[in-house]
């Protein structure tokens, strides 16, 4: 294919504006392939959204129903099933835990990068190693202790656990963003006699703000989607959205269209946030290695 474009006497000269340097035909073939793969990979999502607008009979049909009159009945049914209070719990658990993570992670990562403590490496090792500790190994004592403290089925228990769950990754990310801050800037601030808090607020925070947004986004994704703690530590009062989804599946048989509508609603906040903040997502995941 490459030889083809190289030896052809430039038939595409008229379209050269459109075709980049690397050659026209193979590249446009690749583009078509990319689109096909992307749509194929995304198709389960399309199918989920389509199903959510169907009547139950059309949702579970063989052969699958591709053309139908869309209805909002399923969404109405989900909201009537009391999804609101679960969403509120998810909102509290996600929002407050992310806030707490930031409040704890920013000073900690400062102490691991800009004015590092001794044994920075050991501390970092400790934080990431807590992430490797399987959650299931601590769920029993957490359940028993929470029971004795009478904080089972309490949203604040989830807040504390989600904070601990996301803190190590957040510290690693924030640290890598702080490392990028040039040393001269900080020296200048010190010469001016700016204190820790002032340096943080006026000089560091504006510089790492994109990194902070990236870190917060990652925390939001993992907290919003968390299921294991929510399943084991909550019941009627503090249950979050994933628990609601599962309750829709087991309590009254399987209504696929309604379940799909609930899935779409449950996923929507994080999907939208991720779509809007794609750049931040890349930055956060690559630990700030890319600007």
């Amino acid at each position, binding site marked *: 294919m*490459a030889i083809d474009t190289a030896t052809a006497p430039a038939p595409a000269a008229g379209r050269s504006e459109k075709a980049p340097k690397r050659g026209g035909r193979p*590249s446009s073939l690749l*583009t078509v392939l*990319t689109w096909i*793969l*992307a749509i194929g*990979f995304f198709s*389960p*999502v399309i*199918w*989920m959204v389509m*199903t959510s607008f169907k009547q139950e009979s059309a949702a579970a049909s*063989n*052969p*699958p129903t591709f053309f139908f009159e869309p209805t909002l009945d399923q969404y109405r049914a989900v909201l009537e099933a009391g999804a609101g209070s679960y969403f509120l719990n998810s909102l509290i658990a996600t929002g407050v835990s992310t806030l707490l993570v930031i409040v704890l*992670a920013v*000073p*900690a990562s400062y*102490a691991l990068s800009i*004015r590092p*403590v001794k044994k920075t*490496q050991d501390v970092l*090792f400790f934080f990431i190693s*807590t992430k*490797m500790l*399987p959650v*299931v*190994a*601590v769920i*029993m*004592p957490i359940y028993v202790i929470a029971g004795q403290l009478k904080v089972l089925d309490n949203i604040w228990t989830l807040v*504390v*656990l989600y*904070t*601990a769950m996301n*803190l190590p990754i957040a510290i690693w990310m924030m640290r890598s963003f702080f490392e990028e801050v040039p040393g001269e800037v900080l020296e200048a601030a010190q010469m001016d006699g700016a204190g*820790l808090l002032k340096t943080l607020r006026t000089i560091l925070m504006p510089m790492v703000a994109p990194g902070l947004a990236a870190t917060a986004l990652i925390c939001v*994704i993992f907290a*919003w*989607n968390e*299921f294991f703690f929510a399943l*084991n530590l909550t019941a009627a009062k503090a249950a979050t959205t*994933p628990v609601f*989804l599962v309750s829709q*599946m087991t309590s009254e048989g399987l209504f*696929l269209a309604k*379940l*799909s509508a*609930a*899935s779409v609603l449950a*996923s929507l906040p994080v*999907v939208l946030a*991720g*779509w809007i903040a*794609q750049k931040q*997502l890349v930055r956060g*995941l*690559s630990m700030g*290695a*890319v600007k």
Partner: protein
Amino acid sequence: MSTLVEKQQLKRHEQDRARAKGAKAEGWRRRGPLLPALIFTIIVTQLPFLFTLWYSLQNWNLLRPDGDAFVGLSNYIDIFADSTFRQAALNSIIFTLGCVFAAMVLGIVFALLLDRNFKGRGLVRTLLITPFLIMPVASAVLWSVSMLNPSYGLFNWILGLFGIPAVDWTSSFPVISILMALVWQWTPFMMLLVLAGLQAQPKDVLEAAQMDGAGWWKTFVSITLPQLRRYIELGVLLGAIYVVNTFDQIYLMTAGGPGTASANLPFYIYQRAFLGFDIGQAAAMGVIVVIATIIIATFALRLIFRSFDVKD
């Protein structure tokens, strides 16, 4: 004279002391911002584990209130005779390695396709990252019911177009079904990391290689891949940390079944603790998993510390 010398000595002594004191205060000033996060993490993540250790030495079954006796290591001995535990451990390894490997290969392919200028690039990227953002519980439902259901699943219908008869995926191939959902969820994560690596690589090196007449594959293997290495390592490490703890997909797609064919360690321990109420046994399994994880993690962390050369 002598008093002058004495005074000077005294002064120097005082300075030394002040400096030592200053260094100590400086040390605490540096440590101060770290302490809240450190103490919080120790209390919430390490303290419960001490309880787990204690439980693992007890015969504590919530269904038998008379129990709750110290039994030493007998819970651990039972585990080594438990073939289901071995099966679950093997499944954990299959899920983790299979998912991380497949997601990474697919992620690299997608990232290479995205690392070009073409119409609708932003939209394609948006489509491709979406599975990572979908709630895992929702994606587990989506895969087990909408996609893989034997009678009305979309997957069997597509296979039917090619004349392949319907398959009851989640009961005939439970591990593969779960892997499908897992790979779908984690491919975007790997893709984003690799894409970040691709965009960080200097373009002039690539152009020079092309000028030298190096083919696409040769350029990829000898230049691009080595430069992507730390991104790939980071992806493998972070991916493995999360995938090894997979619970949602197994709980919802197969419930570990049929039998215990697709249970991984987190799910099997959950079953023992919350459905079998055998706290002692489950705790001992948890401890063994932690020990195994520490051994594996020590190697993995050496990898990441090497590639990120942390300044001490």
